[in-house]
């Protein structure tokens, strides 16, 4: 089992979609990067924290029936790739939705939900999921 540090380190990203913006070319990334793949050394020292928009549209989706152990009490559940309003593509679960009514182009927003826990006595991992944006 991984130590608590592994998940703790990602809290700004998992809770608040914190990624990076390259100060050289202004491209935005999620998750964060210490190096811009386009600017490479021209972007060194210029990668700033960037908070990705919490709203977007469904780009594509799937309803998972064969679920990993950590999610077996949720199955069947939906996952989606979402095009955020500021142009990034992010993936996560899509919840609080009628599974038969999900459509490409549907508006969604990200919320904080439980992702997993390290057993009944372990740490609870929170992160972002998407819900329909009414």
């Amino acid at each position, binding site marked *: 089992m991984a130590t608590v540090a592994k998940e703790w380190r990602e*809290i700004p990203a998992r809770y608040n979609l914190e990624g990076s913006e390259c100060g050289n070319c202004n491209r935005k990334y999620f998750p964060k990067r210490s190096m811009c793949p386009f600017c490479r050394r021209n972007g060194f020292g210029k990668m700033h924290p960037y908070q990705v928009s919490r709203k977007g549209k469904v780009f594509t989706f799937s309803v998972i029936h064969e679920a990993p152990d950590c999610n077996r*009490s*949720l199955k069947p559940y939906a996952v989606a790739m979402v095009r955020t309003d500021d142009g990034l593509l992010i993936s996560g679960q899509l919840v609080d939705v009628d599974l038969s009514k999900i459509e490409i182009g549907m508006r969604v927003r990200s*919320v*904080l*939900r*439980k992702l997993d826990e390290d057993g009944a006595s372990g740490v609870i991992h929170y992160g972002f999921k998407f819900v329909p944006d009414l």
Partner: protein
Amino acid sequence: MDVGIVSYGAYVPRYRIKPEEIGRVWGADGKGMGKGLKIDQKSVPSPDEDVITISSEAARYMMQRVPDVDPKEIGAVYVGSESHPYAVKPSSGVLAEVIQATPSLTAADLEFACKAGTAGMQMCMGLVGSGMVKYGVAVGADTSQGAPGDALEYSASAGGAAYLIGSEKVIARINKTLSFTTDTPDFWRREGQPYPSHGGRFTGDPAYFKHIISASKMMLEDRNTKPEDYDYAIFHQPNGKFPEKVAKMLGFTPEQIQYGLLTPSIGNTYSGAVPLGLANVLDKSKPGDRIFVTSYGSGAGSDAFDITVTDEMKDYKRENAPTLEKVLENPVFLDYALYAKFKGTIIMPE
């Protein structure tokens, strides 16, 4: 200085179950139980929701409505609940991170049965009023558990509301708060036990009614007011009947309590109950409205508040987040099997 509510946010999970469906499983007259409790349905949290996620949603709505408030200026965060996800590791710490108020602030979790949220509001008032902090956040939220087959299963539900307490651009000034507290064993849960226990009918007169009436009378006397001086009144609401009765006993009318009484449509959200009732009232209020609030927490105690909605409410960006009425629209009803799946009462393999 004026101390009061600068912003608020409320959230209730979208799933519901009806008392008749619960009764069906246990061979009880669920519909009759519902009528007796004056509860039409109760809210059910999704398996991936808990007090931390509910607090986060409510607090995010609260912050969205005050875009000019820098979360780093929040000096205190308190989450009051009787279903904190951890016995040791504060929900308020996680919430502070979620709303990006960290690291310069104090935080702690509160428990006082159903009044932990209002107790948090009082603590924030003290910190703000003394000049120790600029803003404090108080949340009352619960994902309360009713033991399967027990009377509480018909009412124990989930939801929460968050309050930003400050002294600048106050939309609802808290003119006064006071409390009535005793050691009264009407309802309790021991460490490690999954479900609470209660003293049956002892939870009525010596507990709920005594404390709410005492605190309310103290407030009316302190403020030199009468029930008719208020536009709205919100009382703790473990079912739909108790608050109607206590309102009548104190001299408040059904019209005054209607917006603050949500239990009939969402069940008893415990620490979320009065905060949610107040949020619904604030959604409908206008400048000049006077609001009377008395919460109740078993164990036991009542916190009373005398509130006046200010002119700031005109400029308040309530529209930046959904009203509670909007949040409660289009709920999804569950049968008992799905309810058990959501509550985690189905034994899954190792």
